[in-house]
């Protein structure tokens, strides 16, 4: 904090810029490079047909992503999985090209347990690129003439010797696909915004304690940078949502509450613009600021967790864990959070310095 504030003429600089600004440059260059260049795990994007009849053979045409079906070697295997160890292995797997294969299965006429539809996940494994899974890839319809002897088929096939992907890769998630990379661009904007608003609230508190006008100036600078990040977070989230939730705005509780939080802070700027007297403006805005920050926490972190939400980390959806953010992603994600936050502090500092110059002229 003191570093951001002390960046005035006469401070030690390298090539005309203080070290923390260079850190922002280096970290963000790294984040954009790694976030774009590290490849994705293989995945399954399409399976046809998606409906099979029990007691019949079926040929599934499978479209993969980042796969090497043709050139990746002959150890290509496929399974349909009902639950746990209850699997069926394909009796023939034939690669058409790098991304297309056809797998033939005999679907037994009887299933363990009785359901109207049996959802089956497709698992494909190849040594070259590793395992990929598509949950609920096909649905099996029960047979008219069940043959109890078929039950034995479920116990003969086993999944074994699966290949884990090697090297630095990001997880392939269904629906998300490559957009998982937005974790490094969309999420850090919100982390940055919260930290910037936090700094702003801290300066508002300091203004209350000491009445120093400088604190008011810093407080409003952080809000401007935070608002920029917040609006960007909202717009990038809408773009991401369009291609994963299928709508820019689905009135999801996380979207609504984030929009309300931004409106509260925008209201603070409107309030500042409408007060002529600078002392009164500083006092009003310090009070409003503390209330706004106190509201930010329940709006972004508590209310969305209380109800159902599409957004990860809310309404029972996990976030920042599992396959949505594994350790290989953290190598980019945490530098992104630090880098974007430093960039926000840099922008806030520029706003502050311009404001200071404006007060002098």
């Amino acid at each position, binding site marked *: 904090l003191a570093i951001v504030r002390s960046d005035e003429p006469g401070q030690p600089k390298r090539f005309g810029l203080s070290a923390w600004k260079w850190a922002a440059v280096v970290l963000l260059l790294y984040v*954009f490079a790694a976030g*774009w260049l590290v490849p*994705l795990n293989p*995945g399954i*994007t*399409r399976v046809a047909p998606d409906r099979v009849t029990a007691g019949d053979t079926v040929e599934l045409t499978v479209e993969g*992503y*980042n796969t090497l079906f043709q050139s990746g070697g002959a150890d290509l295997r496929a399974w349909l999985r009902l639950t746990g160890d209850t699997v069926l292995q394909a009796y023939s797997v034939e690669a058409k090209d790098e991304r297309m294969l056809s797998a033939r299965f005999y679907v037994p006429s009887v299933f363990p347990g009785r359901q109207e539809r049996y959802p089956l996940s497709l698992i494909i494994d190849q040594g070259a690129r590793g395992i990929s899974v598509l949950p609920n890839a096909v649905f099996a319809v029960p047979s008219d003439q069940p043959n109890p002897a078929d039950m034995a088929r479920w116990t003969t096939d086993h999944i074994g010797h699966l290949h884990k992907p090697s090297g630095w890769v990001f997880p392939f998630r269904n*629906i*998300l*696909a*490559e*957009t998982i*990379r*937005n974790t490094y*661009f*969309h999420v850090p*904007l919100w982390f940055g915004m919260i930290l910037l608003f936090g700094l702003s609230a801290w300066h508002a508190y300091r203004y209350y304690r000491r009445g120093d006008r400088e604190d008011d100036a810093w407080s409003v600078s952080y809000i401007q940078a935070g608002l*920029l990040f917040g*609006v*960007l977070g909202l*717009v*990038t989230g809408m*773009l*991401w949502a*369009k*291609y*994963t*939730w*299928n709508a820019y705005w*689905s009135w999801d509780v996380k979207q609504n509450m984030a929009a309300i939080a931004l409106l509260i802070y925008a209201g603070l700027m409107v309030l500042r613009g409408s007060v002529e007297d600078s002392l009164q403006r500083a006092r009003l805005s310090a009070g409003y600021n503390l209330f706004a920050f106190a509201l930010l926490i329940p709006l972004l972190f508590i209310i969305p967790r209380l109800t*159902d939400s*599409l957004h990860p980390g809310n309404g029972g959806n996990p976030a920042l864990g599992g396959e949505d953010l594994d350790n290989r992603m953290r190598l980019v994600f945490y530098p992104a959070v630090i880098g974007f936050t430093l960039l926000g502090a840099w*922008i806030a500092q*520029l*706003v502050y310095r*311009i404001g200071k*110059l*404006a007060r002098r*002229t």
Partner: protein
Amino acid sequence: MRAYGFGAFALVLMSSVTLSAQAPAGTDFLRSTGKIYVVAAVCLVILAALFIYLIRLDRRLSNLEKRLPNE
């Protein structure tokens, strides 16, 4: 009741997502190649907004410089 409602909603949403993800593959540019262009769009939005903000700051600074007395 509410869980059912959400379940149905999620199912409709998921199915519409998978349907739309399957139907126009190849026709929809942003959905092609593993939706990588969504990431490109997000990065372009961030870059564009940062530049617009930078230009605004630059203009404010230029105005201030005009008002400052020349030394």
